């Protein structure tokens, strides 16, 4: 009963935040509401017994997406005319009926699917039965790297494509794209960074290591590590460089390269492609994925080909 009350309050909070994201007069406020929406969603994932998703939503959905949105908003303001005073919402008479009809469609789909009797022998059940074969006890990690490795490989390809696309459309290099490090010289910033950045590395490695048997994994860990990098950019410790260093070039493709190579070597020795031959291979691939994800996300945040230490 108390659980149902918590779920109801949480659901109301989520819907309210979504409504505020759309309705807020100021764009800045809308983005903040969206970030809070992400945090409430991560609570909903926890309530729905999906702690892996809760971690991913908090780190990626709310954290990194929020940072990307806010920094882009700032860049738009610095580099362009301020058109935040015009009318924000258009009047479209069909919008409300279309939105209501689509919401109704979601309800009908959900309602119908909930009525269906449980089907035995689904992919998820088979995964749980055969989890021991691949040597990890977290079923989500098992699916991501054992049973549906193609998805994860393509996911890395999408992240790489997003970064390449972002580089391709940003034609000229503007060194001032990072917001000014307004507080870089405050003495406490250095002390804070020397505390927070090592912790973000520690948490990232922990999430990676725990991912085999507990909630966690390369994506959550990568996002936490990227958060440390974003902090270094914001405080002026890292700054945009006009050229990517060789290390950065390797880092961006490391995940995709290691994953593909491992998969191909397995195929060359007679196994099915991408069938990772043991727990060590899973951790090897996950480590490469983590490094690539973190680096790509920080580079996307910096909107620069590369990064270097600020003088």
């Amino acid at each position, binding site marked *: 009963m108390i659980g149902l009350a918590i779920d109801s309050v949480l659901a109301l909070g989520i819907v309210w935040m*979504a409504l505020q994201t759309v309705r807020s007069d100021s764009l800045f406020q809308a983005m903040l509401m969206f970030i809070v929406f992400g945090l409430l969603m991560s609570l909903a994932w926890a309530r729905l017994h999906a702690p892996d998703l809760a971690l991913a939503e908090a780190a990626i959905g709310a954290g990194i997406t929020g940072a990307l949105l806010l920094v882009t908003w700032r860049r738009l303001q610095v580099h362009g005319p301020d058109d935040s005073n015009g009318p*924000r919402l258009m009047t479209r008479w069909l919008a409300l009926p279309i939105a209501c009809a*689509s919401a109704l469609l979601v309800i009908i789909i959900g309602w119908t699917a909930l009525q269906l009797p449980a089907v035995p022998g689904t992919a998820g059940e088979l995964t749980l039965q055969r989890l021991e074969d691949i040597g990890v006890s977290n079923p989500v990690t098992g699916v991501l790297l054992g049973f549906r490795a193609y998805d994860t490989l393509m996911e890395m390809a999408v992240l790489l494509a997003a970064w390449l696309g972002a580089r391709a459309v940003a034609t000229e290099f503007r060194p001032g794209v990072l917001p000014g490090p307004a507080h870089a010289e405050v003495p406490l910033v250095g002390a804070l960074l020397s505390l927070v950045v090592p912790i973000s590395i520690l948490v990232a490695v922990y999430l990676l290591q725990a991912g085999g048997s507990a909630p966690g994994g390369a994506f959550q860990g990568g996002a936490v590590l990227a958060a440390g990098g974003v902090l270094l950019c914001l405080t002026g410790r890292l700054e945009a460089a006009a050229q990517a260093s060789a290390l950065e070039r390797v880092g961006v493709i490391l995940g995709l390269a290691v994953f593909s190579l491992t998969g191909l070597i397995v195929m060359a020795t007679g196994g099915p492609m991408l069938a990772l031959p043991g727990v060590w291979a899973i951790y090897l691939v996950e480590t490469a994925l983590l490094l690539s994800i973190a680096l790509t996300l920080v580079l996307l945040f910096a909107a620069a080909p590369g990064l270097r230490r600020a003088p």
Partner: protein
Amino acid sequence: MNPTAVIYVLTAAAIFGIGLYGLLVSRQILRQLLTINLMGGGIFLLLITLGGGAEGPPDPVPQAMVLTGIVIAVSATAFALALLLRWQELSGSSEVDGDAVTDAVTDALDDDE
């Protein structure tokens, strides 16, 4: 029927509807990106609720799919934000305007030649 599942299906529907409404009426591109992400959140919530999240640990396959979806969403958003910055450079505006789109693209192509 599990009442928790009903609550989250209704929430998913509400978020999706609100997101779609926002997408249709928003002028600013940044705001449209927020609303697309809201719609995505609604679909993710529906998938996990239908995967049995209300009763116990949900089916691992939809969980992995949603995890992939969250990463794809941030990738697509990051790319869209880069496009938005470029769009503002070309058109001088961060809002949607059909005619302005055509003009700016035509100008950019002319410049390249």
